């Protein structure tokens, strides 16, 4: 317990998850230090999304521990599974960006950003509004603040999704295939925002199939296959001379395609 080093924002220790007969995650361990951009790569069905969803307990892991800045997620000090209310409090410290954006359709863009900070974190409305407007300016959508999500393009929706996650001032940002649902010509604008966040030194875990982005922006690659972390390392090493045959095949297939 508590094997977290000082700089570890996120410490994942021995996470396993099974859906029925399918072992989706087997004994996954890694730490993310402050300012790191960790890209999780791997073939479809390798458990990448499930791993992200286990980190904030959208899925409950069967085994293992997760620490956020030293605080155990999911299990409280008494060793009991957290109540929904306790879990909610922890979750506000973890920002999440979804594959299909998952914006709240009944709220405007600005309201989407303000909803959780005001309603859950109970921060003052005026302050939250000011910060939300600054975040919208940052993702280039100031002029869309009063528009409903349905009126936005996919790329715009995902930039709102990122701004919404940032509005909570989370300790770590989780991205679940943030560009997979986008038309190819809209991918670039989202990656641009994500590169900017990486440059700023935001702590991020990004599940992605964008090899170019992973190569340039990641500080570390986590390569998964069949529910296991097969290889981890710096991108310049991972993409040029991976240690494992499986990683080599994966890179070749994506380089070709």
């Amino acid at each position: 317990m508590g094997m977290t080093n000082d700089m570890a924002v996120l410490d994942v220790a021995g996470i396993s998850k099974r859906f029925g007969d399918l072992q989706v995650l087997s004994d996954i361990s890694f730490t993310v230090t402050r300012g790191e951009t960790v890209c999780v790569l791997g073939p479809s069905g390798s458990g990448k999304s499930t791993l992200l969803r286990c980190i904030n307990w959208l899925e409950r892991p069967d085994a293992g521990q997760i620490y956020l800045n030293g605080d155990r997620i999911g299990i409280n000090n008494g060793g009991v599974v957290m109540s929904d209310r306790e879990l909610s409090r922890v979750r506000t410290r973890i920002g999440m960006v979804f594959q299909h954006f998952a914006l709240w359709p009944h709220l405007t863009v600005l309201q989407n950003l303000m909803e959780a900070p005001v309603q859950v974190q109970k921060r003052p409305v005026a302050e939250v509004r000011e910060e939300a407007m600054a975040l919208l300016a940052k993702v280039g959508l100031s002029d869309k603040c009063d528009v409903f999500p349905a009126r936005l393009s996919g790329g715009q929706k995902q930039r709102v999704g990122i701004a919404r996650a940032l509005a909570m001032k989370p300790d770590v940002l989780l991205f679940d295939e943030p560009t997979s649902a986008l038309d190819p010509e809209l991918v670039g604008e989202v990656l641009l925002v994500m590169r900017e966040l990486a440059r700023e030194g935001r702590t991020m875990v990004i599940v992605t199939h964008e090899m170019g982005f992973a190569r340039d922006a990641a500080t570390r690659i986590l390569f998964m296959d069949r529910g296991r972390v097969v290889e981890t390392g710096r991108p310049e090493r991972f993409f040029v001379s991976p240690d494992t045959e499986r990683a080599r095949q994966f890179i070749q297939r994506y380089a070709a395609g």
Partner: protein
Amino acid sequence: MIRDFAIVWSERDLLLSGLGNTTILSVLSAIAGLVIAFVLTPALMSKRRWLALAVRVFVDGMRCVPFLLFAYIVYYGLPSFGIRLDNWSSGLVALTVYHAAYLAEILRGAWAAQPREPLEAGVAFGFSGPRLFRRIILPPLLLAAGPIIGNQMIQIVKDSAFLTIIALPELTHAASSIQSRHYVPFAAFITAVFLYWGLCLIIEAGVSGIDRLAAARR
């Protein structure tokens, strides 16, 4: 015939008071029914099987009982169990409970048709319990189900006419006392029909208002 309508006109105070009572009954039942549905719907969707099943039995049961019979049970039947309600309370309770079941089922259907991700985002952003339902889940349901809820409101207005049998002085009751007093059945009842129709038009105007809000968000 003109003379018949003149008689109805001379009894307009009675009709209008009936119309007023029908409106009060319908509005109160609609509001209370919705509030109860807001509690029943999450129970129907609950992961706790016993809770979902218990509410499912109530909802399906209610939907299979003719409203008239249910009103009889509340007014004439409950006193056998020591629960004695006057005609206003009985009428309100019957109308509210009966239609709450329908409204809960309408909202459950709308919920099942919603995409899962926005709800999940709500959970991931720290919403839970009643706040998750009220802030994240419910608003899109009301927008999506607006027209069907409006339909149910119209049903509430029409079912309130049954309450004439427990001597509630609503619109149908007023029309039927005018016809029995003056023997002008056609004029009295057709006037009531048009007044009901007017109420329904108001509801439909409300529905199209909600629909405009929903369209901006689709």
